[in-house]
């Protein structure tokens, strides 16, 4: 065998190996400082696919893609009640290509419960909202909110109410009710809201506080009764269910709020682009209809500073509540 030929072969292998690496590794990368956006945007949803936030975002992001003329790719990063995804965005480059679409609870109630979980995030816009409702079984003795309050006054801890857990923002409406009326309602945490609905239906708990979407079918079918809802006005689909405000509790107004955030230091052009785009898309009736199908109402609010102040006010309010209830020291 020819020794030189061997060395030649090795060199050829080496070269082809390097070329292979280059072919694989080098796609054309355009980091041109052109118009925003000039490539795909990653929108992180910090919850699992098929969840309420996920469905909401997916129902209209396709339209946003059309307006922006760049793909908005929805990536689920569930975990730690939304913190995993929030972390990922907070630590990313503030170039507008990694954004967060989350339910506001992780930013307000979550921080009130655990100040260490605060993340440096820039609110861009509130997009949609879903109210929270307290329900009871239709055949039970709790036909109005007053029934509940009276029963709880007579027998503290005698009325049980399930929720998705202390750390979920839907629990807040229950906590606020207790704080406002001074009653004590037995709280039963059931993480899965559909399990909560079945537990209520089966008569094992008296009430359930949670997002409207979980129980709406059963309320419409007459198996469950809505006692109060946290929206500012009565819901179109449930004209018989009073709002907390009507019953004298305007502060019980915690809804599920879907907000878009970016990392700290986002360039103003990014924020403005999104404000304009969302403004156009969310004003359309077909988008409102799509959102309605997944139980969300359009609620478009902008103004980074204003939103930031709103969230920090909520954090303060919830911290006081948490201290009062002894959840935090």
């Amino acid at each position: 065998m020819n020794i030189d030929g061997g060395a030649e072969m090795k060199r050829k292998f080496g070269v082809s190996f390097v070329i292979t690496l280059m072919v694989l590794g080098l796609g054309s990368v355009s980091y041109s400082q052109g118009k925003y956006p000039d490539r795909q945007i990653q929108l992180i949803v910090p919850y699992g696919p098929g969840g309420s936030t996920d469905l909401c975002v997916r129902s209209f992001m396709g339209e946003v893609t059309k307006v922006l003329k760049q793909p908005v790719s929805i990536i689920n990063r569930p975990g730690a009640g939304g913190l995993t995804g929030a972390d990922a965005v907070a630590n990313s480059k503030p170039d507008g290509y990694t954004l967060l679409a989350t339910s506001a609870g992780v930013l307000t109630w979550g921080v009130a419960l655990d100040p260490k979980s605060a993340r440096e995030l820039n609110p861009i816009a509130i997009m949609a909202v879903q109210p929270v409702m307290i329900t009871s079984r239709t055949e039970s003795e709790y036909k109005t909110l007053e029934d509940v309050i009276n029963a709880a006054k007579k027998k503290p801890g005698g009325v049980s109410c399930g929720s998705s857990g202390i750390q979920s923002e839907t629990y807040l409406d229950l906590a606020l009710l207790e704080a406002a009326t001074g009653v004590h309602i037995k709280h039963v945490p059931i993480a899965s809201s559909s399990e909560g609905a079945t537990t209520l239906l089966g008569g094992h708990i008296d009430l359930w506080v949670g997002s409207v979407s979980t129980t709406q079918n059963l309320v419409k079918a007459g198996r469950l009764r809505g006692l109060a809802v946290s929206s500012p006005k009565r819901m179109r689909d449930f004209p018989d269910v009073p709002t907390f405000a009507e019953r004298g509790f305007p502060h019980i107004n915690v809804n599920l709020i879907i907000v878009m955030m970016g990392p700290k230091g986002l360039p103003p052009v990014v924020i403005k682009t999104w404000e304009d785009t969302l403004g156009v898309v969310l004003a359309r009736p077909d988008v409102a209809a799509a959102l309605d199908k997944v139980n969300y109402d359009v609620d478009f609010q902008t103004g980074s500073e204003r939103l930031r102040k709103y969230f920090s006010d909520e954090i303060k309010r919830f911290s006081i509540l948490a201290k009062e209830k002894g959840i935090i020291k």
Partner: protein
Amino acid sequence: MGRSDIYSSGFWLVFSIYIAVESYRLDLGNWHEPGPGYFAFGAALLFGSMALAVFVKSLKQTSALKGEIGSAERFRWQHVVMVLIAMVLYTLLLNTIGFVLCTFLIVVFFIKVVALQRLMKSIMVGLCMAIGSYLLFSFFLKAPLPRGFFLF
């Protein structure tokens, strides 16, 4: 059975004591209001008592055993370690150099180094696997995959 059991049950015994201590610190609550540490503590107790039983039993037995081929002896571990290290490196490098490149490298490594096939064959298979799996996962199933500092 035999000597390997002494090591394993000894390890588990220590582990369960550690868990018991940790769960005690998490607050056991009482019978009527179980705290966070309640179940883990109970499990640790079960764990520890069983580990102790196996430990004692295997201690008693070893004295009676001579030249038993325990399962501790068949540890030809070089390949195992290589595979594991490759997997860990893959995970570490995934976000830095991207899915396609990482996949290519690990497949080449497996076929060339672990299975000792020829370099050319390894590269070919590596290319196929890298591109094929990219098409499968990213295009076809639309699963988001990490991109390195290259396009993909």
